[in-house]
């Protein structure tokens, strides 16, 4: 049961094959077993069981709230949850219990979903590895998969297994690990420069970043307001669509959500025919750092579309190469501003120093933020200084517009969706990852995902195949703004073609054989 998709388990709940409470307990027990993954910062066991009980009553009375009723979900710990500690993996917010729910959290709860807990991340979502939070790094469940282990045994150079675990990617690594390890059926991440798609790719999941303005940010503790979007991590595209259906829509509490009517619910048709589609392949995304495996899968995916009758054309996004540096200026500037509120006065950490208000601020912020956050605050304030503003911030905004225009031009040339890699390579071991600092890693790892946030477009990472090492590789589809449904429809067709294998964790969870119900799906049509 745990290995099923959200849609499947929802059907099972409706048919009474399992009750919400049973499902909840199974997930809770798995959360405990996989505690070493460090996917969760807070497990909201009591809340989840109570919600399950209520859901069970509804099912008994035939008053189910819909597909999400009784479904265990997890939420990244940078979404405000009423009565449940929300830390952003930072000392600054340790012990902070918000008095309100983020709109997306509230919407999920209103649909009857069970909140299993709050997932780990890089501090304030600043990172691409889920390694830089105050609660420690998140371990990629694939480190313990049969697929990866078997490959490693063949490799004579493999070192000590325990120290060789892989990162999840980030910053929503906890959410990705939680879904990947079957502790829940969907999780909320956030996506500012790729923070949902990147860990999804590394953990073999669907990672969806909706159009900016489609889903409310109210209650999402911001990284970069103008780029943040709540992200959705699921095991398949249909599941992402179900969650999106629950979340999308205008929110009076978020003035940047759009009021235009959107098609709801997000029911995805099964495309039988892709011959009317035009797939764009941005040539600038073929960078030297791209691993040959990813590159090869990318071109195979393009071939697949072409062979099925779609038009596949090369497009140019000429300003992509400026995306990283432009993002650095805009991100750090907004970070400097957004972090100003953490002064220890109203909530969160406060130091013991009370010589003066200024001294208290300084010590509180030094103790509360890690080096990454403090570094970004410092850079951001530099860019916003009167003498630098025009040269940095304004220029970066102009470049951002050019980057966004690149996409518009591509779509205007007749392209329906763009197909790109999500990451340069598969997940790397933690010890390898930390050889570079956070800034370098973030710059490298967001290279394919970041420009999308600048333009506010919808994008989704779909797991495609396992690498030679037995690790997942994802590809990214990018759609026109607010054409999220079309994007997911194409992604669903693709997903069906590639038949990505289910993670095999039986060694890890010896008595959870139920996990392996879907082993039969383990065929890889795009395998090299």
């Amino acid at each position, binding site marked *: 049961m745990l290995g099923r998709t959200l849609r499947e388990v929802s059907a099972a709940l409706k048919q009474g094959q399992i009750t919400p409470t049973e499902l909840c307990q199974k997930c809770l027990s798995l959360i405990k077993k996989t505690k070493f993954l460090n996917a969760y910062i807070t497990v909201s066991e009591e809340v989840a069981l109570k919600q399950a009980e209520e859901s069970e009553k509804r099912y008994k009375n035939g008053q189910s709230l819909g597909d999400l009723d009784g479904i265990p979900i997890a939420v990244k710990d940078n979404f405000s949850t009423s009565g449940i500690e929300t830390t952003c993996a930072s000392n600054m917010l340790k012990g902070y219990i918000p*008095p*309100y729910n983020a709109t997306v959290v509230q919407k999920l709860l209103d649909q009857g979903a069970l909140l299993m807990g709050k997932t780990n991340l890089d501090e304030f979502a600043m990172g691409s590895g889920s390694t830089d939070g105050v609660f420690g790094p998140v371990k990629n469940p694939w480190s313990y998969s049969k697929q990866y282990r078997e490959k490693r045994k063949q490799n004579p150079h493999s070192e000590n297994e325990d120290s060789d675990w892989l990162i999840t990617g980030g910053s929503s690594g906890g959410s990705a690990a939680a879904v990947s390890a079957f502790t829940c059926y969907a999780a909320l991440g956030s996506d500012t420069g790729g923070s949902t798609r990147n860990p999804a790719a590394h953990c073999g999941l669907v990672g969806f970043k909706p159009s900016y303005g489609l889903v409310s940010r*109210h209650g999402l503790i911001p990284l970069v307001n103008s780029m943040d979007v709540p992200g959705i991590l699921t095991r398949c595209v249909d599941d992402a669509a179900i969650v999106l259906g629950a979340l999308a829509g205008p929110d009076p509490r*978020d*003035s940047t959500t759009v009021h235009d009517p959107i098609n709801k619910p997000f029911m995805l048709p099964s495309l039988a025919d892709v011959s009317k589609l035009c797939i764009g392949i941005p040539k600038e995304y073929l960078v030297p750092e791209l691993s040959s495996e990813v590159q090869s899968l990318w071109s195979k995916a393009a071939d697949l579309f072409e062979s099925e009758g779609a038009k596949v054309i090369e497009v140019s996004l000429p300003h992509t190469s400026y995306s990283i540096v432009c993002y650095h200026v805009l991100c750090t500037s907004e970070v400097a*501003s957004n*972090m100003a509120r953490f002064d220890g*006065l*109203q909530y969160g950490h406060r130091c013991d120093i009370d010589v003066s208000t200024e001294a208290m601020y300084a010590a509180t912020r030094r103790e509360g933020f890690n080096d990454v956050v403090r570094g970004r605050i410092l850079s951001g304030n530099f860019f916003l200084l009167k003498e630098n503003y025009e040269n940095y911030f304004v220029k970066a905004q102009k470049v951002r517009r050019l980057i966004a225009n690149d996409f518009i031009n591509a779509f205007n040339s007749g392209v329906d969706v763009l197909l790109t890699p999500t990451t340069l390579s598969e997940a790397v071991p933690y010890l390898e990852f930390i050889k570079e600092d956070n800034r370098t890693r973030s710059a490298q790892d967001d290279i394919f995902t970041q420009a999308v946030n600048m333009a506010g477009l919808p994008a989704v990472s779909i797991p495609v195949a396992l690498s030679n090492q037995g690790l997942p590789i994802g590809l990214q589809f990018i759609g026109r703004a607010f054409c999220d449904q079309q994007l997911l429809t194409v992604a669903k067709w693709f997903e069906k073609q590639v038949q990505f294998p289910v993670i095999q964790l039986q060694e890890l969870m010896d008595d959870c054989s139920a996990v392996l119900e879907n082993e039969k799906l383990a065929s890889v049509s795009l395998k090299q």
Partner: protein
Amino acid sequence: MAAPMLRWGCRGRRWAFARVDGGSCHRRGAPTGSTSNRIRGESSVAQQPLHTAQKTRKGEHKWAAVVGLEIHAQISSNSKLFSGSQVRFSAPPNSLVSFFDASLPGTLPVLNRRCVEAAVMTGLALNCHINKKSLFDRKHYFYADLPAGYQITQQRLPIAVNGSLIYGVCAGKKQSQVIPKTVRIKQIQLEQDSGKSLHDNLRSQTLIDLNRAGVGLLEVVLEPDMSCGEEAATAVRELQLILQALGTSQANMAEGQLRVDANISVHHPGEPLGVRTEVKNLNSIRFLAKAIDYEIQRQINELENGGEILNETRSFHHKLGCTMSMRDKEGKQDYRFMPEPNLPPLVLYDATSLPAGADPQQVINIDQIRETLPELPSVTREKLVQQYGMLLEHSFTLLNEVGLLEFFQNVIKETRAEPKKVTSWVLNTFLGYLKQQNLAVSESPVTPSALAELLDLLDSRTISSSAAKQVFEELWKREGKTPGQIVSEKQLELMQDQGALEQLCHSVMEAHPQVVMDVKNRNPRAINKLIGLVRKATQSRADPVMIKELLEKKLSL
């Protein structure tokens, strides 16, 4: 008084509109800079103006002062600019604080429609160009009562620009002439108010009250077109009346709904402007005028003594009557402005740009707001002048005193007396009594109806005007009696019996042959003495005009 000693044309007396016959004493007209306030160390500084003033009077140095104002008016609205919290003065601390106001992480601003309408309305009333698109920015600084670490304001593209404010300054020998002056308005911007810090020095701690945090403000920037405290004070008073007429702000300075910062510099005419200082903490119009005049004089003294003016922020100390440097620790702040990313551009429409089928709840139509503009004070004054034939300065006084115009209009409505008579009574007698006892119009013991009845009695010659004053004094005692009751109790009616009066005149003339001789010897003024004597004999109950007629007849003049 500091102002009249200077050369740049401002007459010292301010707010002197009330003196119809030079009678009443206006509260705000009280002399400024009284020496009794100058105590301790500041006294030497405070007294220097006298010295310089004499110099300037000789024309050795001509100085011109340049004054610009930044005015923050709290918008009168039910809820705050970006949150649903209520706006209320003097509520228990931190009782009106939403999650957004406390800047809980993840909260977002949602613009209050009423505040935008108030800004548009104010902009239109001040002849501004309303920007169809305006933007919000973040202004960063760390302060305990600014929980987000930044204020949301409109730095780059404010909602209204390029307006003007016309105000009247009193001039002429008797301050009886009103000269219209114009100050340009640079811009009006919407922004958030901060919270309040309460410093508990005893326990050396600071307490924060966030009730005010996030309340909508209109920042009105007045160009440096003013040249003295009086001009600035008059301009602010006019703005206050306009805001109150519009209902966009209660503009009560004592409650902090109207706060003024003044930018002040002095220079020799024809030369570049001097270095300016900013004076804060001006919480009444009187102190505003006082502080500006003090600061102008301080700068002149400083420069004449070879000193220099620092570009600094100064605070007005109203007990000492002087400005003092606030000594910012960090010097000039860099506010690190950036666009507020959580608020889309504020787009306004007019009749021509309004999209068809737009939801009226979602759009703001400038033309529609223009149609709902109420009568502005300048128009009200004009109407008063035309309708009642009063002097312009009287109309100023009627508007300047809170509630006085309404009082006046209520009296007019109920009395048969001439408007001029009503004007005179309201502005001299009534306002005089109020001022003497430091009362507001709303605290007056005399109601409009009572005054109207009194004026009717006067108009019908039932009582003399001196008797009327007596009745008024009785009314002021709040004994609940009507003018009619007072008149009959005190027997103040004029003598209507002409025969008796004739008899009295006769006796008086007989008793004062010398005076009668004087009159007959062509000293016409002497008759006044006779009139006075007769009136005295009637206990002031006779109409002097009638007495005069009878006397003249008897004296066969």
